[in-house]
């Protein structure tokens, strides 16, 4: 038996508030890959230099964060089981962050920590604050409580803290705002963003979407709470150690905590995969599942980095490898997969909404070129592996070829995104 409970259909967030984030993120990926290609030789040198800072922030903010902000505006109803509080606030978030990123990146690239970087950082902070407010009000008006909402909201708070520290670091270049120079706080700023924002969000969103896309019978909320606690405890411990007990050996404690969380999340995804009803797994899901495994690469590099620091001293190559495997590896892989798992539905809803049920319309997966998608994936994986070899071998020509492969992957990815966004209706 069932009850007719006149449940409301929760309206989707309009594509107008979501698609600009996707387009911006795609262009940022292209810009970052282009900058990487132009500057691949500097990956033989020290990691703290203008061009690497510019590439890292283009990847972290323009590519990773903008894509996640866009997707989260679309997926808020699914994740928090309620509708997005305000569409104008979503527009405002986009406008502020989209204006801020090029200013900040230009500031880094030219190493001008004056007004471009400062205003860039201010605008980004204002945009993230707008996003946090919108998310908080959305969750507040939602009737249900769920763990995915807790993951997403906590991640957004870590993001805000990351960008606030980033703002302080930008000002610290020209004014002595903090007790030490900005380089000293780099690992604190970076890990709040990587663990607090990216990892927490990916686990929170992934734990909702992966079983949903696989039509899996698996559900384990207790395990998700454990993962949530381990990631946050690890991050809080890291902050305490960084500020009060900065001995490299102690960093193994938060690392173990986060590592266990990753293993448990891997187990959660594996269980969802094993208990799926839908046997066929498409390429977009395959690359997303691959990215879960790719999370382990930076962890292994981080362990090596800490061991190296304890035995010798900081190793610039390992630190660069760590950053590269996070931004060009794990985060890029998950976005490459998830873009073509979410954007085709947004465009399909926009174009074919009123034609639904009235005849044959194309499937969302027909709106992009799957062969191009596969080629993008191959170029990306080749470029990624080759770049790692390039960092280790310090051979400039290997770095250049690898960067070229990643640039080609970015071009094909943009082509496919453009094909999707500009899709015109096919008459039934």
């Amino acid at each position, binding site marked *: 038996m*069932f009850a007719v409970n006149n449940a409301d259909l929760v309206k989707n967030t309009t594509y107008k508030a979501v698609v600009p984030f996707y387009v911006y993120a795609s262009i940022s990926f292209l810009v970052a890959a282009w900058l990487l290609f132009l500057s691949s030789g500097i990956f033989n040198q020290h990691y703290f230099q203008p061009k690497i800072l510019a590439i890292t922030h283009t990847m972290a903010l323009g590519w990773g964060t903008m894509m996640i902000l866009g997707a989260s505006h679309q997926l808020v109803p*699914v994740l928090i089981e309620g509708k997005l509080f305000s569409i104008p606030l979503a527009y405002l978030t986009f406008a502020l962050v989209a204006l801020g990123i090029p200013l900040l990146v230009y500031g880094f690239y030219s190493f001008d920590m004056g007004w471009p970087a400062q205003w860039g950082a201010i605008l980004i902070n204002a945009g993230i604050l707008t996003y946090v407010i919108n998310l908080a009000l959305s969750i507040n008006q939602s009737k249900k409580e769920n763990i995915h909402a807790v993951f997403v909201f906590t991640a957004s708070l870590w993001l805000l803290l990351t960008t606030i520290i980033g703002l302080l670091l930008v000002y610290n270049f020209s004014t002595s705002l903090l007790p030490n120079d900005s380089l000293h706080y780099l690992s604190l700023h970076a890990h709040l963003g990587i663990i607090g924002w990216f990892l927490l969000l990916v686990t929170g969103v992934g734990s909702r979407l992966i079983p949903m896309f696989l039509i899996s*019978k698996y559900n384990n909320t207790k395990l998700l709470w454990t993962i949530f606690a381990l990631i946050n405890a690890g991050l809080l411990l890291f902050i305490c150690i960084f500020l009060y007990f900065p001995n490299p050996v102690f960093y193994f404690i938060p690392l173990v905590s986060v590592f266990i969380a990753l293993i448990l999340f891997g187990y959660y995804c594996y269980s969802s995969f094993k208990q799926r009803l839908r046997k066929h797994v498409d390429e977009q899901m395959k690359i997303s599942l691959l990215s879960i495994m790719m999370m382990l690469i930076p962890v292994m590099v981080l362990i090596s980095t800490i061991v190296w620091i304890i035995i010798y001293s900081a190793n610039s190559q390992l630190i660069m490898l760590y950053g590269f495997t996070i931004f060009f590896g794990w985060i890029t892989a998950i976005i490459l997969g998830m873009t073509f798992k979410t954007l085709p539905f947004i465009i399909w809803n926009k174009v074919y909404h009123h034609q639904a049920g009235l005849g044959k319309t194309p499937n969302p997966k027909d709106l992009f070129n799957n062969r191009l998608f596969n080629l993008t994936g191959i170029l990306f994986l080749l470029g990624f592996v080759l770049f790692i070899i390039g960092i280790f071998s310090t051979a400039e020509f290997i770095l250049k070829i690898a960067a070229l492969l990643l640039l080609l992957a970015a071009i094909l990815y943009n082509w496919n995104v453009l094909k999707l966004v500009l899709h015109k209706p096919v008459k039934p």
Partner: protein
Amino acid sequence: MNEISNNEAKCRIALESLQHVIDPEIGLNVVDLGLIYQINFDEDHSKIDVVMTLTTQFCPMGESITEAVKNALEHAFEGMETHVELSFIPGWDHTLISEAGLKFLKR
């Protein structure tokens, strides 16, 4: 479908037309997916009342799927107006998928 309609012959036609309404993500039609709970024909008022569910209340394709159900039925029964009611008690789960649907998913 959980409950039989008040008009079995028409219901059969309705279900046949709803077999063409496909969940775009899963690729399975809404009938075999187990989304249709009830179809009632109100001949006096030329109305079709459909009670259905979605795989999740916050399904991003929810609007399109309910619109497609409405369009498909109004196309099959010209002159009748379709009213779609959503129910999430019980919510959808895999046990609602038909044998044919399970077979499709295991391909």
